[in-house]
């Protein structure tokens, strides 16, 4: 029991140290676009926001969830943007409107999040055979047949805070036309993202 009491302050210190990671950088900062005010402005600060019009309906990140994840598993790397798809607001939304847009890359194999820096100034033709696009809505997974479109990683930056590397900021744009389940044509326009990928949202297994 005495040992436990002795260890207690150490445990508290460890927990505090773990929490003192750059939590502020994980927050979403929604700066509205000057013209398309439903969408976040294009930025390169790692504001953890994204937005696009999915068949004219705003599809944007929200502040309650992790807006972006990079998942390397099963021979592919997926860049997942998770938010909600509805006319309306950044802060108030119906959980039934939650949706994810996932870009799959079959020839990109990052081992750690710092490898994402190789995406800097990279344009991906979404009609190519080395990538795919999926949408998750109402827990259903829809594969998209891309008719045309691109995903552009305009900038990838190693972000140092007080001289310590904390994450990689990915900023870019996307736009495409596709068939949902080979049936309904949709368009995704004016897409933009500015997200930080670090230890907590990069996965490899």
């Amino acid at each position, binding site marked *: 029991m005495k040992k436990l009491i002795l260890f207690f302050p150490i445990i508290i210190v460890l927990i505090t140290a773990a929490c003192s990671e750059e939590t502020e950088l994980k927050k979403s900062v929604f*700066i509205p676009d000057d013209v398309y005010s439903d969408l976040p402005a294009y930025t390169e600060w790692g504001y953890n926001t994204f937005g696009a019009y999915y068949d004219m309906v705003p599809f944007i990140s929200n502040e309650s969830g992790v807006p972006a994840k990079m998942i390397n598993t099963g021979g592919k790397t997926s860049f997942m943007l998770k938010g909600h798809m509805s006319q309306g607001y950044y802060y108030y939304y119906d959980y039934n409107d939650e949706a994810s847009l996932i870009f799959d890359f079959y020839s990109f194999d990052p081992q750690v999040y710092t490898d994402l820096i190789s995406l800097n*100034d990279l344009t991906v033709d979404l009609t190519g055979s080395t990538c795919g696009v999926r949408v998750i809505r109402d827990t259903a997974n829809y594969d998209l047949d891309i008719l045309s479109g691109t995903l552009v990683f305009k900038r990838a*930056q190693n972000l*140092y*805070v007080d*001289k310590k590397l904390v994450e990689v900021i990915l900023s870019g744009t996307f736009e495409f036309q596709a068939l949902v389940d080979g049936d309904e044509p949709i368009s995704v326009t004016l897409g933009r993202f500015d997200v930080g990928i670090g230890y907590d949202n990069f996965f490899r297994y």
Partner: protein
Amino acid sequence: MKTKFILTGALILLLTGSIYGQDKKLKLLFLESGIDFISCEQPEKDYIRADVDPYYYDFVSDHIRSLLYNEYFGVKFEYRLVKNLLGVSGGMRYNRMVSSIGKTDYWTESPDFFYVNFWSDGTSTEYAKVLEINQKSDYIGIPVELRIYPYKDYPVNVYFKAGGSFNLLVRSQTNLVFQDETMNPYERNVASIIEKPSSYFASFHLGIGLKIGKLTKPGFILEASIPVGIATPDKATFVTPQGGVGVQFMVRIPLNKKIEK
């Protein structure tokens, strides 16, 4: 430029003194000290990472505020006109203008630092966690003031004033308070991205004063200035002044013992 400015000020003082010495109008020497508090626009800086106010959902705010005050001391001569109902004064003063940017989240749980982007190239960006940015700028100025004394010379008296000053930068220094003290060696690097102070500024004010003491005896003066305005030539300054208020304390020394009636 600065030397010429100081010489001009000194010449004004000498001329004023010599004029005073030649007639029988009331002449006064003021030793002044004061401070002006100026409100500023909310800072929107390209080098500061924005933040969103969690309690005002419809607004995007930077959670940071600017502060500006100008403290000064100096000497002035006043020359009374129109049966001592008007006073015209001029002199020289030394100003220290302090401007700062810091967090103001006293009522929220967000931290008291903000991120300053002080270096960036194609694939690397560096932020520093900063608690405060302070800029101290010293100016030499020439104040010019007009006072209206509508009442008789009671020992305690109220009067009105209007004035302005033109001030020239002598030196300045920008300091940062980092959240992590190990960043202190990089202070000069980070400070180099902060805007430089204006090379000069002009200020204008209206006010009311309280004179204590007989006119022919040494006494004190307390003045309140409202509003106080500051104009700078540069738009891209560290803080953007709006308007403010000021207080001034003066020791009044009459230079002649008799008043012209």
